[in-house]
Structures are given as C-alpha cells and as structure tokens.
C-alpha cells in the first residue's frame, strides 16, 4: 500500500513556491524511514516535488498506483492569506473539451494544484483517497523567499500533511 505525497510549487514566485518547500521538508522528515532505493519509504510513503508537469504526475500516479495521494501547495483563492485547509478531493467531472484544455495547459508549462488534479482525473489516475492541503498565499510576487505569513503556513501545512499520513496509516 503506497501513499504518494507531492508538493507542487511555482519556483521563486513568492508563497506559490510553498509546495516545493513542503516536499523538501517532508522528504527530510520522512527520509529516516526510507527502507529501499525505489523511493518508497517505510509505511510505503513516497514524497516527491511535482512541479515537473501535470501529465508526468498523472503518469507517475498511474505507475505507482498509490492507495492515497496527498498533494500540498499554495493557490490563490481569495481567502485570508496564510489560511491552511485540508480538503478531500472528489475527482472533478469535466467536459472532454475542458479536460483537453487542462492537458494542453499542462504540457505547455503551466503548473498549479488544480491542474494536477484535473489532469490526473482526466486520465483516471487519481486514487479514491486523494487529499489536498492548500495554502492561501500572502505574496505571489517573484521572490526566492516565502513571506512571513507563508513561512508560518508552511509549518502548519507540513504538520497537517503529517497528521494526514498518520491518519492514513491508521485507516
């Protein structure tokens, strides 16, 4: 039983880079548990940074066939900056033209949480248990650093992912 944890970020775009940083922290935190070279650690947890493209992520999901997928990152939805939310993802139902548009965007370099979920759903690659931990960014201006609000939200998001993993293990 594999649990796939992915962080998706937009490199150096302020708080939108949070997903990448979350993946880095989680990989370090969970690395002590790693038991083989396949990248699947103890408890069957795989942590990866997923900015490399939504189609490639869908293919990775199809390859791993995880029982659970936990996606973490920042996305602007107009909430209070720094808000951290966990939501269970129901595979989005889209018209074929919308799915094709999502794939087109994905293969041409766009990256965000919704796109990853849309494309993975379009290819039937989302596991039944998919959770998204998403953060409302405080700053989306180009920067190599997270804002103070983003830094606090990162800590909270990582804790939420770890709690999710603990709960998943107990399921």
């Amino acid at each position, binding site marked *: 039983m594999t649990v796939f944890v992915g962080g998706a970020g937009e*490199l150096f775009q302020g708080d939108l880079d949070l997903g990448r940083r979350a993946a880095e922290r989680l990989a370090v935190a969970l690395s002590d548990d790693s038991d083989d070279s396949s990248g699947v650690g103890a408890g069957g947890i795989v942590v990866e940074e997923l900015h*490399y493209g939504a189609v490639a992520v869908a*293919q990775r999901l199809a390859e791993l066939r995880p029982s659970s997928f936990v996606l973490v990152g920042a996305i602007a939805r107009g909430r209070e900056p720094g808000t951290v939310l966990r939501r269970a993802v129901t595979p989005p139902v889209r018209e074929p033209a919308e799915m094709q548009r999502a794939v087109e965007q994905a293969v041409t*370099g766009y990256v965000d949480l919704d796109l990853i979920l849309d494309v993975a759903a379009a290819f039937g690659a989302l596991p039944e248990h998919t959770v998204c931990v998403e953060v409302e960014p405080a700053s989306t201006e180009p920067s190599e650093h997270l804002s103070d609000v983003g830094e606090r939200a990162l800590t909270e998001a990582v804790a939420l992912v770890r709690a999710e993993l603990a709960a998943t293990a107990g399921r």
Partner: protein
Amino acid sequence: MCFKNLPIEFDVNGNAQLKQGIPDPYAITTSRPNVRVTDAEREAQIQRLMAANGHVKDINMDPVTRVAGALAVNVTADLENRTYLDARSQATLFRGYEVILMGRDPRDAIFVSSRACGVCGGVHSHCSAYAIEMAMGLKPPPLGTVVRNMQEAAEMGYDNPLHLYLLAGPDYSESVVKAVNPELWPKAEQWKCPNAKTHGFRTMAELMTELNPLTGKLYQEGLEFTRLSREMFAVLAGKYPHPQTVVPGGVSSTVTMQTLNEYHSKLGRLFDYAQRMLGVWNDIPDFFYECDERYKQVGARPVNLIDPGFWDDPFAYDATYENCNEWGARRWSTPGVIIDGELVTTRLTDINIGWEEFVEHSYYEQWAGDRYTTDPLGNPISTYHPWNKRTLPSPTGKSWKDKYTWACTPRWDRNVVEAGAYARLFTTAMAGLQPHNDFIESTGHSLRMRIPKGTSPQSEVEWTVPAAWNALERNRGRAYHYLFSQLVGMLSLLQAYELFKQGERKVAAVPPGELDKHIPDGERVGMGWWGAGRGWLTHHLVMDGGKIANYQICTPSTINASPRDPWDQPGPYEEAVMNTPIIEDPDPEKFTSIDMLRTIRSFDPCMPCTTHVHTGAGTVMREVNTCSCGAD
C-alpha cells in the same frame, strides 16, 4: 554574396565589410527590402472592399480580449471572397528575462533562462552555457558535447510528438473534422490510407478517430512517448524540464556505461514509433490535398527559413567565435538561411551579422548607441544587432499603426524568415555538409534516413524538400524531424560508447567548483547558436567585470510571432494567415476559423496564444496554449 538588402560585401578572403560611401548604412531608410504591399496599400484595399462588399463592411475587428493567453492574432476576414485581408500577431505577455539577468553572475543565466519555457527548458540551459563558455574561453571535452547532443535529441523526442498529437493533432481529429469540415468526413470514411500497413489504420476516418483528444490511441501514444523521451533526458541530466547539470564547458552529470545503456534501451523503442508517426503525417496532407487543392494554400508563405544548426561535432566544436564557421559546418544539422527557396549561406558568421531586431511595433523603447560595430572577427554588425540591443520595456496602448505586441521583430538581411524544426531538414538536405554517417544522407534536395531495426526491420525513408510550403507540410516536416533527431541521438550514443571504450570520462572543461577562477574580469561577448523543438534559439551575451552586461534571448516564436517590421512586412504568422483561404462554410453563424487555427498551430507557437475573429455575428475565440518563451 548572401546579403541583398544590408550594405555588406565580402573581400577576396571572404571577410565581410560595409560597402563604402553609404552614410548611415543601417538606417531604416537606407537599406530597404523589396516590399510587395505596404500597410497603407493594404488598408486602402480593405476600405475599398468595405465600401463595395457588405460582408467585409460588417466585420468589426474587435480589440483583443485576453483569454488566458499571451498571443492574439487579429484578422480582417472577407467571408464572401473567402480571404483574410489582414492579420496582426500580438504577444500579450512581457517575458523580461533579459532584464532579470542584468548584473548577475553569468552562470545564473543557465538556470534563469531555462525558466523562459516550461516545455523546452533544457535547450535554454544549453544555449546559455554555449554563450557563457564562448565568453569564458572554455572548450568542452568531446564527451561533454556528446552528452549535450544526446540530451537535446531526447528533448526533441519529447517536444515533437507533444505538438503533433496533443496540440496540432486534434485539429485533424474526427471530433473536429466532423464539426467544422463535415463535407470531408464521408470522404475520410472511404479514403484508404496509403500507409495503413505502417500505422495500422485502414481509412482516414479511422486515423482521425484515433487523433481524438484524450480517447484516441494516437493521442494517448503521443503522451506515452513524450514520457519515454523525458526519461531519456532525465537519465542524463537528472531532471526535466529544468536540468541542474548544465555548466559552461560541458555538463556536470555523472555518466556511466549504465547511463548509456539505459538511454539506449529507451531510444531503441522510439524507432518503430517514428515510422508510425511518418505514416500518419504523410497520409494526412495527402488526404487533404486530394479532397481540396486549396489546402495547399492553408498557411502558405515563401520558403524563407533560418536555422543556426544543432548538435555539434565533438571533435570540431571548440567554443570559439573565431572558428564558428568551421565547427558550425560540422553540426549534425547544418546552419543555414533559405530565401525564396534558395540556400544563401551556411556560415554562422553570416547568420549572426545579418541578424537584427526591431521594436517599431513592439512595447519597447528604441535603445541608443552602439556598443559594438563589429563582431569579434571584424565583420560589421548593425545598431539593431542583439549585442547592441537593450531591452527597454515601455507598455503603451495598442495601435496597429504603432505598437501592438511584446514580441520584437527579428529579421535576417531585412527579410522575413521563419523558424521551425523543419528548417533543419531544409538546410541539412540542401547544403550537403553533414558529416558522413550511417543513418542520414543529404542529397541536395532530400534527406535519406535509415531507420535502425526495432520490432520492424531496418528500413529507409526519404524527406524531400516540398514543392509547396504550408501548414500541412510544417506538420509533415516536424514528423520527419522527430526521426532525424532520434537518429542524431543514436549517432551521439555510438560516439559516447566509442569515447568510453577509449577511456574518456571527462564531461566538463573544468570542475564546476573551479569555474570561479575562469570568469574573466574584462569585457567579453559570447553567443549560443542552438535549437529548440520549434527551431532557432540564440542567446547573445555581453559580460563585463564578471557580470552580465547584456543578455538577449531570441526564440523561434519571437521570430514567427513577430509583428510588422519598419517596412510593413508582416511577420510569419501574419503572412501565413493572410495567405490562408477560407475553405469552411463562411456562414458567420457557423464560421470557426479552423484553417487559420491550423495555420497558427502549424508553427507550434510557443506562447499562450489566443486568436480572435470577429465575424459580425459573434466573436469566435480559440486558444493555442503553449509556453511563454515567445515574448521578449
């Protein structure tokens, strides 16, 4: 003598010089191309037609409304006479990498410029490394050059099927053809595919059905094979799309025999697929031509192509500008410029000194002053040359007569040239300079390619310089380029095995940790002549005091999406759209502008692109989504 417009001549030794006695030789009013139609004449024609033709009169060219895109193409269509009277290409996104890079450590350019594109980040990294190593005087060891070639063959393997099946392919799919060209569908059901044995689809209708987005086998197979090529790249570079292993003077990858074997095992699986791809993209144009000869005019434009060449001879490339014509001629794809179907030069210095970028119709201020009047060899360069150009963004309102795009206007010898992966096929086929090898042979008018044995037996195919140049031929050419690039991957892999056998392991001129010692204090120039999946890619660098003093990136989509130049010559997209007939039902209620979209997409536009047509009965909006590297 390759220059017809710029006042450049050559002495008996082949050195370029400005013609004597011409004051202000690069002034726009001094050296003018032969322009067929000025904008004033075009506008007058539209006004005349509007007065006489209600269909034109009713067309209201709406100002571009952004639809999550970074390029718009606005057209004036005469639906009664089934023609596009005018077209304007508008890049609506400012890229700004040149501004970001100013004052930074030149090595940063490898990583920063890579982010110009989410699709082809590897090519920018490498192009940047070429520019930096020329400025720093670092010659890569042969294996470093070979590994670069292998990576870039893999990147083409990712890029070409992605375009053919995910972006352009749907325009020829059952779902689209039935909706926008219903008259073709009964013919497609009857039309027997000449290459059925190769790709497995008995009729064109079957083939088109498998091009359907998401559900079609060809679409899905395209996705699967882009994955394989991505993995090939990652085997050598660690990750894709933005490698961390590109350095001035080579690469920093750890390459072992196992690495080469992994690459080999994946590459070997691509050749059967390449054959199927050729079958598909040979049959599609032939079907359309047979249905209606007018499809030969869709996306048509003169054969004016340019490419700086791609994939170096590891034993010839020395990273110097001084020897660039020698090592350039040894590239697996030959540098070249083709004007009106004639190959006018293959020399990199000619390509470089004939290059200019104008901003008359772009949201930039004209820079003042020439930093350089010559290249490092003493050949004259223009005020508008990238080593002189400065990126000075100046957003203003949109005006077709003044400024309307973030793309600048690159021209060679003041000609409108087109970039594309297929340009490599033309230049290599016509030049006959490619080093002798077991897989590719140039004949002067074609390329014969021998496909290694896969599941299918060894075979030979031939791409011939096409009689007509249009949207369908661009796609066909791209399919052949896929095979071409994978054969370069195979040639490079065999070179890597041979170098390994000889004990070569060094992949960089100096260890990355020692690069600091090699950064010069003085002023230096460098440039990367390289390629992307969509064609031409150059990076021009000026460094001074160990920092970047100027950096200019020119991508294929900057060239193809360029607006009017100072002499009213339309850019390639604009020209190709204006040459496209309206074949579909011109009823404004049904009009989809499908052939204009096929035209735009045939260039593989590299920016989020929105094309709008206002027919008077409603605005038709379509998006051509790609990456963002076409803007400046």
